C-alpha cells in the first residue's frame, strides 16, 4: 500500500475563553486518515461502510481528480459525487485532509450545528458536489452533470460518482447505466465499491451490467492504490467507464 502526502493549508480554530485562531500549514497523508476518522467516533453504526471507500477515495482525491479547495467552484473542475452517502466518515476525512474544510470540524460530526451529518448535504459541506443518503440518486445526477458540462463545451472535466454494490439494487441506477451507455457519455465515470453487501448479489459480477450496456469496465482490488490508480487513469474513448473496486465482504 502506498502512502502519499500532499500539502494543505488549514485554518484551525480553538474555542474557549479568549478564543484564538491559528493558521497551520501541515501535510496530511494517507496514514493520517484513520486518525481523522477517529475524530468522528461516536456513532459506529456506519463505520464498516465508511472504511470500504477509504482507499479508493484517497487515490481519487490525491492523484486523479482535478479539484481543489481554492477553486472548488471552478466550472472546469472535475466532479466527484458521493452517491453512497451513508458511511461518509472516510469522505469527510479525505476532504479535510485535502483542505476543503478544517480538520477540527471533524469533531463535530453529527452535532446539531455541524455541517457534517451522517449523510452529506452539499449546501453544508465544503467540497461536496451533492447531498446524498437515499440510495440511487448520485448516478442519475452524474449523468445530468456530464450532459450539462458537455452542453457548455466543457469537454475536459471528468465526472466521477461513487456507488455501492448494494446501492446498485436501486432501479434508478439501471435507468442511468442503460442511457449513458447508449449515448456514449465518455466523461462519466462510476466507481463501484463492491464489499459484497447486496442481499441477492450480482451473478456474473457487477462489471458485466455496465459492459452489457456498452461501458468500458475494470475490476480491481479496492485496497491496492496502484491498481486503483491505473484503473482510474485508463483511457476509455467514446464510452462511459465503470471501475469496480472490490473490498473485503461487509458481512464476511
Amino acid at each position: 500500500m502506498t502512502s502519499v502526502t500532499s500539502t494543505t493549508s488549514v485554518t484551525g480554530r480553538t474555542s474557549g475563553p479568549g478564543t484564538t485562531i491559528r493558521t497551520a500549514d501541515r501535510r496530511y497523508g494517507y496514514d493520517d486518515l484513520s486518525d481523522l476518522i477517529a475524530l468522528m467516533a461516536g456513532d459506529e453504526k456506519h463505520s464498516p461502510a465508511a472504511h470500504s471507500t477509504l482507499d479508493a477515495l484517497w487515490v481519487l482525491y490525491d492523484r486523479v481528480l482535478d479539484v481543489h479547495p481554492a477553486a472548488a467552484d471552478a466550472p472546469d473542475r472535475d466532479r466527484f459525487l458521493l452517491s453512497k452517502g451513508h458511511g461518509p466518515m472516510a469522505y469527510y476525512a479525505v476532504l479535510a485532509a485535502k483542505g476543503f474544510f478544517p480538520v477540527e470540524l471533524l469533531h463535530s460530526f453529527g452535532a446539531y450545528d455541524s455541517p457534517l451529518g451522517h449523510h452529506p448535504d452539499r449546501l453544508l459541506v465544503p467540497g461536496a458536489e451533492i447531498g446524498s443518503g437515499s440510495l440511487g440518486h448520485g448516478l442519475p445526477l452524474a449523468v445530468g452533470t456530464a450532459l450539462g458540462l458537455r452542453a457548455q463545451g466543457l469537454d475536459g472535466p471528468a465526472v466521477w460518482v461513487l456507488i455501492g454494490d448494494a446501492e446498485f439494487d436501486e432501479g434508478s441506477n439501471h435507468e442511468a447505466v442503460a442511457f449513458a451507455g447508449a449515448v456514449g457519455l465518455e466523461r462519466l465515470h462510476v466507481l463501484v465499491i463492491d464489499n459484497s453487501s447486496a442481499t441477492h448479489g450480482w451473478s456474473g459480477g457487477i462489471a458485466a451490467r455496465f459492459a452489457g450496456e456498452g461501458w468500458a469496465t475494470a475490476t480491481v482490488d479496492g485496497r491496492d492504490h496502484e491498481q486503483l490508480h491505473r484503473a482510474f487513469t485508463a483511457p476509455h474513448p467514446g464510452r462511459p467507464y465503470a471501475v469496480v473496486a472490490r473490498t473485503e465482504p461487509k458481512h464476511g
Partner: protein
Amino acid sequence: MQSVHEATMREQFGATVTELLERDPRTALVLADIGVAQFAGAARAHPDRVVNVGIREQLLIGVAGGLALTGLRPIAHTFASFLVERPFEQLKLDLVHQGVGAVLVSAAGSYDWPAGGRTHMSPGDVALLDTLPGWHVHVPGHPAEADLLLRHAVAADDTLQYVRLSEHRNAGPQPVAPGEFLTVRRGSHLAGVVLAVGPMLDAVLAATETLDVTVLYAATVRPFDEAGLRAALGERADVVLVEPYLAGTSERAAHRALAHLPHRVLSLGVPLAEHRHYGSIPEHLAAYGLDAAGLHARIAEHLR
C-alpha cells in the same frame, strides 16, 4: 367563419420552448419519450440541450438536477403521473434538496384522457408539490396564458416552477400577471368570492351568471395570492375554490389568507375517490360536479 386550428397548450409549449432553446443557451429540455415529436427540429439544432432519456422518469428528474448543478436551466416534461408521482423522491432530493431549480411542465394532469383511466390521471400533483418547499405552480387556462407563464417560469432565475398544461381550456385568454389573482367579475359588497383556477373559469362564469358573486381568476396558485383574495372580499368572507385537480388542494392556503376573519370556504375540484369510468372530458367534469350546472348548485347553496 373560417375554421382555423387553434393551438393546444401542448402545441404552444412546443413552440415556446423551441424558441427559448434557440434564444437562451442556458436552457435545456429533458424528455422521457412523451412529446418528443414536436421537438425534433430543436433536437437537431441543439443536440446537447435537447435530451430524450427514454421511458425513464427517475432519470428524467435526476438528469434535470444534474444539468442544473452545472448551471443550466432545465425544463423537464411528461405526463403529470410520470413527472410528479412516479419520481416524487427525485423531485424532493435531486431538485429541492440539492438547492437547484428546474421548470417542470406536465400534461394530462387530472382528466385529460378519461378513456386512459386511472393510470394516466394525477389529480394529486399540486397537493403533492405542497408537501415540498419552494414550488411555484402555474395552471394556465388558455394556450396564450401557457406561453406567458412558460416564459415567466423559465426566466425566473434558479427557482422551482411547475406548469400544468391541459386539454381543458377556456374560450379566451385572460390578461394574467404571474402570481396575482385577477378580478374577472365584481359582485356587490354583500357578494361571496369564487376563485376559479385555470381551465375552470368558463364553467364558473356560466355557473354564476345569475348569482351576486365576485369571480377571481388564478393562473398561478403557488404562491397563493393571499392579499389578492382578501382584497376581493366585501362584507362577508365566504369563499368558493374551484380547482381542476384534487378538491381542497388550496383550502389550507385560503384558510391561512383569511385567518384573521370569521370565514367559510367551500372547496370544489376532482374528488379523491377513484372514478372508474372512461368516456370524455365533459362527461368527467359533469360526474365530478364541475360543469356549469353542478357548480351553480353547489356555489348557490354555499353562498345563499
